[in-house]
């Protein structure tokens, strides 16, 4: 079992308990807030210029290390750049990293999962072992290896994080496909004489894949956090790109003098992770509630 599978089971269980909700369809307060937050993030991604108050890269050494004020809501960093604006500017980058990494993980996981569940006994066994092997490289270690080979940088970091999540997805996808294939409604379709191709399109894929989208949203947050860790180790995004993880690690060194440099990017990351997770769960409840 991995963190992803964990999340899977969690949302499943939660959804299971939440049937009534699914019927009533009235979202919870938390979901609404999370939704609002995500909308904010998307806005920041789409039109940073409007959301930000200043040029995120405008350096003025003169007003470095300004504490939060009306002029600089979140204060300024060591180069006098407006932290709020940088966080806004960083939204795109960070989300991109999170999303891309997740997509990579999902795609790979899907490939393996489908192979395992349709490739027959031998392939299944092989894939299973392969997944085990991938699991044997804990996330950051795998990332480090990839970086040793491919050299540091945001792209590598993203790929690395994506890779390290793949086995988790693979297992879930396999599990779902297998369980759906042996489900009664697929049997019913066979009894009606439906050919495999049609069963795949009509039943297997929709029922197996849509939950994955949900799972994806749950993964994004963690991807961002891991990418941040790589930035801390100096193996992540490159300046002046305002990436949250990079800002965080930059601020860390000035913790003694300028707490705001760490706190606000930190809150951005934590907030995003939470928001995506909450939304993901809400989605999942709809998802499973429909059953």
């Amino acid at each position: 079992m991995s963190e992803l599978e964990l999340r899977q089971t969690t949302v499943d269980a939660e959804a299971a308990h939440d049937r009534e909700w699914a019927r009533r369809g009235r979202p919870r307060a938390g979901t609404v807030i999370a939704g609002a937050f995500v909308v904010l993030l998307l806005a920041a991604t789409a039109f940073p210029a409007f959301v930000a108050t200043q040029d995120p890269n405008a350096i003025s050494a003169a007003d470095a290390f300004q504490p939060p004020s009306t002029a600089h809501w979140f204060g300024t960093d060591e180069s006098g750049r407006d932290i709020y604006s940088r966080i806004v500017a960083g939204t795109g980058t960070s989300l991109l990293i999170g999303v891309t990494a997740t997509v990579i993980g999902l795609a790979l996981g899907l490939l393996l999962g489908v192979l395992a569940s349709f490739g027959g006994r031998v392939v299944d066994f092989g894939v299973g072992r392969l997944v085990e092997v991938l699991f044997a490289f804990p996330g950051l270690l795998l990332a480090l290896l990839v970086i040793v080979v491919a050299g540091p940088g945001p792209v590598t970091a993203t790929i690395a994080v994506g890779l390290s999540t793949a086995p988790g997805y693979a297992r879930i996808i396999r599990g779902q496909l297998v369980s759906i294939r042996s489900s009664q409604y697929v049997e019913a379709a066979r009894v009606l004489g439906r050919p495999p191709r049609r069963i795949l399109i009509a039943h297997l894929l929709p029922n197996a894949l849509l939950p994955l989208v949900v799972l994806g949203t749950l993964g994004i947050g963690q991807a961002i956090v891991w990418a941040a860790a790589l930035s801390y180790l100096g193996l992540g995004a490159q300046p002046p790109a305002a990436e949250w993880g990079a800002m965080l690690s930059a601020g860390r060194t000035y913790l003694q003098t300028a707490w705001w440099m760490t706190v606000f990017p930190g809150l951005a990351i934590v907030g995003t992770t939470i928001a995506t997770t909450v939304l993901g769960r809400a989605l999942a409840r709809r998802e499973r509630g429909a059953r």
Partner: protein
Amino acid sequence: MRTATPPARRTRAIGLIAVALAGGVLLAGCQAGEAPVSEEPVSGGTLRYASGDAEPSCLDPHVGGNYPQALLASQFLESLVSRDESGEIIPWLAESWEASADGLSWEFTLRDDVEFTDGTPFDAEAVKVNMEHLKDPATQSSTGYLALGKVDRVEVVASDVARFVLTAPDSALLESLSQPWLAIESPAGLARGMEENCQAPIGTGAFVVDGWVKQERVSLVRNDDYVSPPADAAHDGPAYLEAIDWRFVPDAASRYAALQGGQVDVIDNPQPDTIAAADESGAFAWLDAPRPGASNRIELNSSQAPFDDERVREAFIAAAAVDDGIDALYFGTAARSFSALSSVEALAYSEPALFETDLERADALLDEAGWTERDDDGTRMKDGARLVLRFPVSTNQSVPAEQSLFEQVQAAAKEAGFDVQISLLDLSSWYGALFAHEYEIVSAPYTKVGPDVLRILYHSDSITPAPSGYFANLAQVNNPEIDALLASAASTSDPAERAAQYEQAQRLILGGHYLLPLYDQQNSFLLSPKVQGARALPTVSTPSFSDAWLAE
């Protein structure tokens, strides 16, 4: 930072759990009381040192030869000569020395009362063995090997007289020999072979390597028979300290926190902001010891476009405003430098006029150089090519403040239409980029005693890479005039002439717009008030605790 921010509050709760975890353990923290400064040195005690430099892979500075090794080696190894504040070479293990008229042979008269800590006597034979050890490829020496470039062999004249025979006159020989990388080790110790010697080299120093726990600490204990302090030492005889606990604490914030918490007495490489804080609060003593050799500077790769055009180089230097940045980022702890050499070098030559920021001039020069068009993000173009400057930065060698400064340079240069592309790389990737000439600008420290460092950095010989691909002349300065000056300065025996030639060489180098000096190689230490009598050796500014004591 405890202004009630959510995380802080959250951690409170966690703290309680943490306490529970700690169980009955007494508070290991906070006994950092201000001790009354007693004037009379007291003996005993263990000094706890937290080092932020990379952990050496071998404690023998002959092997390879980098600064982290020097830091530690200075505690247990000693050189033939040393330097005082004024930059004068002074006796250490050698009492006196004499160069032949042609400067091809040097005779060193050694102290005859010194023994290595393993009992082996220190004599001319030992010196001979050490120099041969350094020149032996199997030793994998890099710094020391280069420093002895002109030394052909060492002859034992008498048990206490060693003669260095040179292939060419070397005015830098004494300075070279003063460096920890050429320190004298026990022949018996060397004979044990590299693996063993790397773990605990044997010298004549005030302390002895007692043990090395990888990634944690090196423990050093007092050498009770110590008799050979350098001529400028405060006292003779064994050190006051019983031992030094040398810990590796890579994270700067943790290091300072440890000093504040009283887990350690001395830290190196403190964050500028913490230096400033400590300095004005007076809670900790600040030992500021810039490294000798080159200053920290940005080198401009003049061997390829766009910097093969001097106007573009000049434009960049005129555009890259750094003064405010240095003040802000270093909190006034670092002084702007206008020289290729460290301010501790007596022969350092500064020319501030060359480095005034002047955007108009930069623009004018670039237009003149043909970089007239600009693309939509403001970067200048010339027949299709964008004005891109690749700037590989080593995360191991550039402290955060410096990286921030480079970002500011990036921003400033953008005004003039340069597209500076910083890439933060780990050491290997960084060297990889350099070796492949994938850089227009780069900043690399180089520590060496004496102005001869100029020859290493700017002589055209240093353009041709070593088998490993390494080359020191990153600016790719290739100027016969400069070569000549550096060569003769390195071999002349007349100090005045030497000084003149070095100044002339520096004029040319600075005037050629090959580099943008920033500040001296920062090398600071923060000491808890109870640490007394510690100092940095004027050779390569490594700390020395042979005179230090802990006030109660």
